[in-house]
């Protein structure tokens, strides 16, 4: 399989960030209290990364993929339990896109990808803890299964 270029990998990460922001809109309304606050903070983190990527890709003259009106969710979000499960999955999926950007980047760009991978993997673990899901961790965060 051909190694994607840094621009392609970051474009894919941006599309994943769009989808994560959309998902958190559906997740937040099913939560209350501390988990709701945590969802708001998570959504803000994904928005920040989205904004950074849009600037980064357009400055580099690359293709900035457009956001879409909606994204397919892997399962319906109908209550607290399904919202927490989706939050853990969103973090794990977004982490996977940043992990995929590691090979094609170096220096500050790789540091940026690693920071996102670590942050999202830790947040996935926190969501599993809140949801009472086990195991709390996966052996290789972000690795395709």
């Amino acid at each position, binding site marked *: 399989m051909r*190694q994607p270029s840094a621009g392609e990998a970051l474009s894919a990460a941006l599309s994943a960030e769009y989808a994560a922001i959309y998902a958190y809109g559906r997740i937040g309304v099913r939560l209350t209290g501390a988990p709701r606050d945590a969802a708001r903070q998570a959504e803000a983190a994904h928005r920040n990364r989205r904004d950074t990527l849009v600037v980064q890709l357009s400055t580099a003259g690359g293709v900035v993929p457009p956001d879409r009106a909606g994204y397919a969710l892997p399962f319906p979000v109908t209550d607290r339990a399904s919202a927490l499960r989706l939050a853990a999955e969103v973090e794990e999926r977004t*982490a996977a896109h940043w*992990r*995929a950007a*590691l*090979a*094609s*980047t170096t220096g500050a760009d*790789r*540091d940026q*990808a*690693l920071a996102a*991978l*670590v942050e999202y*993997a*830790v947040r*996935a*673990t*926190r969501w599993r*803890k809140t949801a009472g899901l086990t*195991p*709390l*961790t*996966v*052996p*290789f*965060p*972000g*690795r395709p299964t």
Partner: protein
Amino acid sequence: MVDEALGLAAAYKASATAHPDLADRLGPIAEAHTAHATELARVIGVALPSTVAAAPTDPANDPAGALAALRRLEKTAQQSATAACAAAPAERAALLGSITAARATHQEALK
């Protein structure tokens, strides 16, 4: 990095033996470190050391102290994995990134 991962696995096993109540929590993390060592040895092209790495220190007598010591080990190990990922050739960067992230999630799971 291979030795470090095996040392972490050994530290978890020693703590699980000293504190059987923690075994369910520590077991999967010990297995993750062993899996990291195995995968690293495979991509580097070296044999996995056959001698079992010793835990760096004896686990604390109280469970909370043992967990705190493991968190400190993971934090140090996360830093060395971060440096290794930054310096890695393209073909190893993703694996080292996953190992860095795993060590961060272990600290969260031990809280």
